[in-house]
């Protein structure tokens, strides 16, 4: 699980161009949108691409990902249960 979380953080930093950010700086439980990492609607769509590209998970819309994208821990849980690669 720890490895998965680290990989997810790295993939997010890379895809979302979070300049000068390291995986250690992202709190596993902090909200990704709003106050936490401050991600926006385009980033939400980008998270869908990350899940598809690296884990073979297909979400139809950001609405479907709303619960999943709450925090790094939520994403990691979801990926562990639903990943196809």
């Amino acid at each position, binding site marked *: 699980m720890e490895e998965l979380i680290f990989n997810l953080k790295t993939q997010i930093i890379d895809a*979302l*161009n979070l300049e000068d950010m390291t995986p250690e700086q992202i709190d596993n439980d902090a909200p990704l949108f709003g106050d936490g990492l401050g991600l926006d*609607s*385009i*980033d939400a*769509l*980008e998270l869908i*691409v990350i899940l598809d*590209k690296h884990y073979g998970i297909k979400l*139809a819309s950001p609405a479907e990902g709303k619960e999943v994208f709450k925090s790094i821990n939520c994403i990691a849980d979801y990926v562990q249960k639903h990943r196809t690669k």
Partner: protein
Amino acid sequence: MTSIVATNITSPLGLSTEENYAAVRRGESGLKTMDGCLGVPGRFCLGIFSQEQKRSLHLEGFSWFESLVLHSVRDALSRCDVDPASPRTLLIVGTSTGGVEELGETPDKDGLFLAPPLAVKKVAQALGFVSEPLAVSNACISGATAQMLADRLIASGAYDSALVCGADALSAFVLAGFFSFKALSAAPCRPFDIERLGLNIGECAATMVLTRDDGSECWRLCDGCLNNDAYHVSAPIPSGDGVCRAIQKVLTPEVRESLACVTAHGTATMFNDQMESKGIGNAGLCDIPVTAYKAHFGHTFGASGVVEAIITMCSLDEGLVLPTLGFQEIGVSGKIQVCDTLLSTSKRAFIKTQSGFGSCNGALLYAKSVFSAQGSSHAPSSAQFAPVPAQYDLVKSLRITPDGLWLDGEAVPAQERGAALLSELFKARLADGSRFFKMDLFSRLAYLGAGLLAKDALEDCPAEDIALLFFTQNGSLLADRKHLSTFSAPDAFYPSPAVFINTLPNIVLGEIALSQQIKGETTLVMIPERDDSRIEAIAKATTDATRPAAMIYGWVDCTEETAFRAELKLIKIKK
């Protein structure tokens, strides 16, 4: 104010205005549902030309986009006596992506690919134009922006006539991008309907011939307003503020009395239609029928502002307001009357609204009559009532190249060179918490330049009165290549919305507007090469027509990580 003396629509519904209007009048749709398209997987509903139509339209040696523009402009020329060989005739093309379907991932593979202004130049030469053409890339409001620019350049005295073509071709490039935005409906779109599921992409070229108004009986582009809502580069502002302000600017009591309808953008995405209903309703047009044609053509991007205005001219010539195909039950909360049945009217004026990525909006007013009040509240756009030219002071200027930054001619110390220089300057001088590091190089360059000029310099200017006017040749070329690489490899179809958004070169204008709270007009003009006298002439025609309190304008271009240049100025109106 300019007269519209001829038109053409080249779409899957037909190759002339007459054919297209007849099809729309019969309630026909050019949308087709298909599984997989242009190598992009999934079920799509698209306004796409048939193979047979493509065979007859696609010209040897020209890209598909160029072929569409050629056909549309040539047909419009054949219907009027405007001479393309006169230096006083301009060709101006509004397009969101131009001929990007020909782009290869490496420069050598390009073949037919030309940056939009060069593609337009090729078409202009093929049609015998002698003046240097222009392209405008303002996402979905490109067609409306091209009309406004043509109107101003005619008013400025530089030209007597302009062929204004709005055009976009369907490509895997655009399809994959909107797929990643999850904005596509697999069924025919349903503007303003409670069950709307998103947009359908369409391809089309549509042309209007604008000439200096001579008072004859014809349709006119009477007035228009373009602005920015400074909300978000891809999400429409929920209040509809931009659309509302644009409408209010062209709406005098006399205009209101004459309005037959509003022809809305109506893309059938959840957010656009909701936003637009608020904007139209809040502008006080609750009782004016609203029509939208996206279920006939799909969303034709750069063409939409031209093709949809032409269809309404045809319908009002018959004394009709057409129903909105696909609409059944109201699904927006703004107080508007979506037209769901054929209405007869004796009125001969309408407003066309447009909104697009980069948070830009527009409202254009067309009529068969001349409004007496036009120009009383703001600068008139007709040469007959030519205003005293506004005088501007140069406040600041800058140059950015891979080798450094110069502010008002003085070199600013910096360690880094090339793309890293931009990051260094951003961190040292702006560091405004924006999406800077999510931008492509072109956007970073323009954003940094505008930010450095705007910093502490715009406080005394009302947000609605600050404008951006940028010129480029290659625009988003680097982002275009990157986007292509996200979906063109076999078995690796992962188009990225963050990359795709940067392929619209006007996106950065939205980023700048958002961070600086600029709510005036924001326009990206594409020209075949850097030409400072031309940039000054277009900037002057723009300030004369719109009189912003302040404007940031100039050249921004990049072709490589190590080859870029920005030459920007901040001017303010003389007090």
